[in-house]
């Protein structure tokens, strides 16, 4: 493969040499930083993904060295391969930024904007995208598309209203698991992700559709409503799993493991897919060997309250007065929150009113 010809492509005035057959998006990812177009449906680990969401639209101002005419329309960078001498404009093009704004508005037309309820909030790609590229208002005046809630098993909850139809979960099930049990039903405006005849998803690796989903359409039922993402601390951990690599990210609070996900790279893509056992059943610290805190971008809300490199100051008061200082109030005796006898992370599904009814 090293004999492949190299193509020179210029993206936002930065030139990079890439092998032939690379898409513009991947060439931009080689440069990295702001010139990389955002992608909602393209997933480098999934074959055939991309070309659906149109967020990665770029302007090709020069087709190639041999044919320097610009491409007539904006092209989807995840599906367009580079040519030698191609010049691409992403953030330097007014047209692209305007189109992206339109795409965000389009994606949000049927999105319920229930971020306060949604478990994906804080790590949602659609949230980031609309924050960075979208308009603050919508011009859409009609009712949003709604669906009847469908139960697809004990581990995954499906919120079809939040779906942007990126097909990532379909490709994941197709390429990762033995049998695909869900797909897109209907067409056009009526298209929806569904399992046929209310089947539940119970494949070995089906939990990865949660990580792959760019929005909160597929979320972890074992983590549902337990905590907000930004109040849990991501920790890299591994275990010896026979089915998968066992390299995961734990989302912890104190000693409680609230959620297990795969590790994600800087493009928000899963590094190594993990199995359902690791994801849903190993919810205590003793199951894992902890490697250390995960690196989180400091602009992310998840990094709030995570103080890196701080040292605990030594306490001398007990040495000075010769005894432990008297606590005027122990908050855990008074507080109703975080009661030790109610371990939210150990409850199978979301907590309900009767889970809190235990007397103290």
């Amino acid at each position, binding site marked *: 493969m090293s004999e492949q010809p190299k193509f020179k492509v210029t993206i936002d005035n930065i030139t990079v040499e890439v092998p032939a057959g690379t898409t513009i998006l991947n060439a931009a990812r080689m440069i990295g930083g702001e010139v990389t177009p955002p992608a909602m449906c393209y997933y480098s680990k999934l074959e055939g993904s991309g070309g659906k969401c149109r967020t990665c639209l770029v302007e090709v101002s020069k087709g190639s060295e041999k044919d320097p005419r610009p491409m007539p329309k904006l092209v989807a960078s995840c599906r367009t391969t580079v040519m030698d001498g191609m010049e691409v404009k992403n953030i330097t093009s007014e047209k692209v930024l305007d189109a992206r704004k339109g795409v965000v508005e389009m994606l949000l037309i049927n999105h319920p904007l229930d971020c*306060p309820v949604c478990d994906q909030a804080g790590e949602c790609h659609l949230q980031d995208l609309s924050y960075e590229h979208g308009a603050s208002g919508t011009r859409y005046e009609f009712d949003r598309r709604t669906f009847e809630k469908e139960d697809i098993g004990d581990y995954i909850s499906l919120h079809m209203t939040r779906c942007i139809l990126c097909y990532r979960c379909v490709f994941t099930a197709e390429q990762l698991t033995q049998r695909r049990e869900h797909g897109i039903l209907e067409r056009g405006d009526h298209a929806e992700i569904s399992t046929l005849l209310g089947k539940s998803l119970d494949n070995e690796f089906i939990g990865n559709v949660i990580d792959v989903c760019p929005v909160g359409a597929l979320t972890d039922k074992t983590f549902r*409503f337990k905590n907000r993402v930004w109040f849990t601390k991501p920790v890299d951990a591994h275990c010896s799993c026979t089915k998968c690599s066992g390299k995961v990210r734990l989302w912890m609070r104190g000693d409680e493991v609230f959620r297990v996900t795969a590790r994600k790279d800087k493009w928000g893509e899963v590094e190594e897919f993990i199995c359902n056992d690791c994801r849903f059943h190993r919810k205590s610290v003793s199951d894992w060997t902890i490697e250390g805190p995960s690196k989180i971008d400091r602009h992310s809300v998840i990094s709030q309250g995570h103080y890196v490199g701080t040292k605990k100051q030594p306490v001398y008061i007990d040495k000075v007065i010769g005894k432990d200082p008297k606590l005027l*109030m122990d908050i855990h005796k*008074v507080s*109703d*929150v975080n009661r030790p006898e109610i371990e939210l992370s150990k409850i199978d599904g979301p907590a309900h009113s009767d889970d809190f009814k235990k007397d103290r």
Partner: protein
Amino acid sequence: MEKLTNRSAPVNRDPMTFGEKIYLPAIAKGLSITIGHIFKKKATVSYPEEKRPFSPVFRGLHVLNRDEEGRERCTACGLCALACPAEAITMEAAERKPGEENLYREEKYAAKYEINMLRCIFCGYCEEACPKDAVYLSETIMPTNYTRDSFIYKKEDLLIPHPKMQQETK
């Protein structure tokens, strides 16, 4: 030593005159200032009977709102706790069960909601952060107390009375 400003006046160290030695003029001058204050407008009010008007931006005790049908507005999104600079707010969320639709507005609600008023600095960021118009800072002054645990306000303490089921107690 060089003077920093020109405002300092030299102290007069001359011996006192007879008029200054008998002190009576100085006492009369002091008393006249004191008596003069009797006729001025009082700076205080007699508090429980008389109350000062609040500034329109006054931020007092928190309340948790209900909607028109008396359902709790809070969905335990955690944005108030995130915005809180004093980390005074904690909460635990739960899923609404079928049959509880008249209690909670959204499918997720705060099963436990707690504000530690000892930590709270009444900055009002929680009110600004709330996407559901659930938490408001009222015009009630934070009541004082002798014990510390009475400053941990639970959800029941913060919720406004139900418009239909509970009669407002005064």
